[in-house]
């Protein structure tokens, strides 16, 4: 039996999960990663994606939209801006997420006219959202 890590998922409004797990898959901003026991201490920001908790009594999947994860040898804490259990997400939630991302692009384009950096970031955010939608079987409408 593999060693367990303590997994905490916290959103600003409440503590969503605090369970033991054998591994946690995290959508890091520079790539997905899996955290298991005795992982080196690491802090990474998240991109919109799915957090998978595997093994233990708290196995499950959560949709997160940005935030960060703190990993150390004994535990993983994810502080997500927004986190929803995968089963609970609706097309409506997803539409709101897409809308916010679109608004962010527009705003970045207006604010940083000659700097592509922030605009690219916002575009990437939307792309991540769309990829997330494909993965969970929701479609992105661009009527926003």
């Amino acid at each position, binding site marked *: 039996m593999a060693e367990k890590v303590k997994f*905490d998922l*916290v*959103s*600003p*409004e*409440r*503590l969503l999960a605090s369970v033991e797990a054998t591994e946690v898959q995290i959508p*890091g*901003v*520079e790539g997905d990663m899996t955290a298991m026991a005795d992982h*080196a*201490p*690491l*802090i*990474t*920001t998240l991109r919109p994606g799915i957090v998978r908790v595997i093994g233990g009594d708290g196995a499950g999947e959560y949709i997160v939209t940005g*935030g*960060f994860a*703190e990993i*150390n040898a004994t535990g993983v*804490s994810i*502080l997500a*801006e*927004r986190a929803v259990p995968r089963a609970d997400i609706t097309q409506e939630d997803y539409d709101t997420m897409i809308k916010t991302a679109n608004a962010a692009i527009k705003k970045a384009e207006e*604010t940083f006219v000659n700097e592509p950096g922030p605009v690219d970031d916002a575009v990437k955010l939307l792309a991540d959202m769309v990829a997330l939608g494909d993965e969970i079987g929701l479609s992105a409408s661009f009527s926003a």
Partner: protein
Amino acid sequence: MPNLKDLKNRIDSVKSTRKITKAMQMVAAAKLRRAQESAEMARPYTERFNAVMGRLSAAVGDSESAPKLLSGTGAQETYLLIVMTAERGLCGGFNANIAKLARQEATELLAKGKTVKILTVGKKGRDAMRRDYGKYFVHHVDLSDVKYVGYGDAQSVAAEVLDRFDAGEFDVAKLFYSRFENVVTQHPTSKQIIPADFDAPEGDDGGSFYDYEPDEQAILADLLPRGVATAVFSALLENGASEQGARMSAMDNATRNAGEMIDKLTIEYNRSRQAVITNELIEIISGAEAL
């Protein structure tokens, strides 16, 4: 001596006032429980967030490339005071205390020759500040349609503040709100949010052992704006609990006062009724004696 009918009317009116204050007290008690719960549920996030930010800001330190939200603009000329109060009154000194603290701060800053800008959240604080400081108002956030504050509300306040910061409208931002201690005690508090000031976690052992992905600077740049939202959110929640606590004790006092008043008025009513009876008797008896 007031006549009996007037007294009776007054007693009735105080009685119905007592009913209202009693009902308000019970509503506030129920809302307080809810507000306290949501404040408690939000606490883990704020604590962890601040712990990580404390470590991060210690790691980046005062290096020149540190983001402006952390190190400041280098000047301390223009202050933005974010005054957060309730949308409703009838909650004791709650709104007045916050406004008083903000006024003191504003007066001090103005005396030092700084520029002051005021952003109000909540109608009551706006009304309280308007007379003396109305000309410094820059914006007002209306939350009167919001029943239970969510993170989204905090985000919109934070976005408003950050936009102004990016536009170089101010150097330092301070939040004014009331910290909830218990039902009878709420402390009006001011907290600086820009430049951010995170307490390093106590007994911090391995801060420098952490790897960062992307690097510290990028993470900080990403997280600092969220830090503002988090600070605003926790202030909103503390305020929510404080407001209900203050209203509950204010209404409890009002109910008790109404009770005392009813007792006093009832005694007066009985006395004057007795006086009327005695008078009538005297008249009858002296009438009978005169015959």
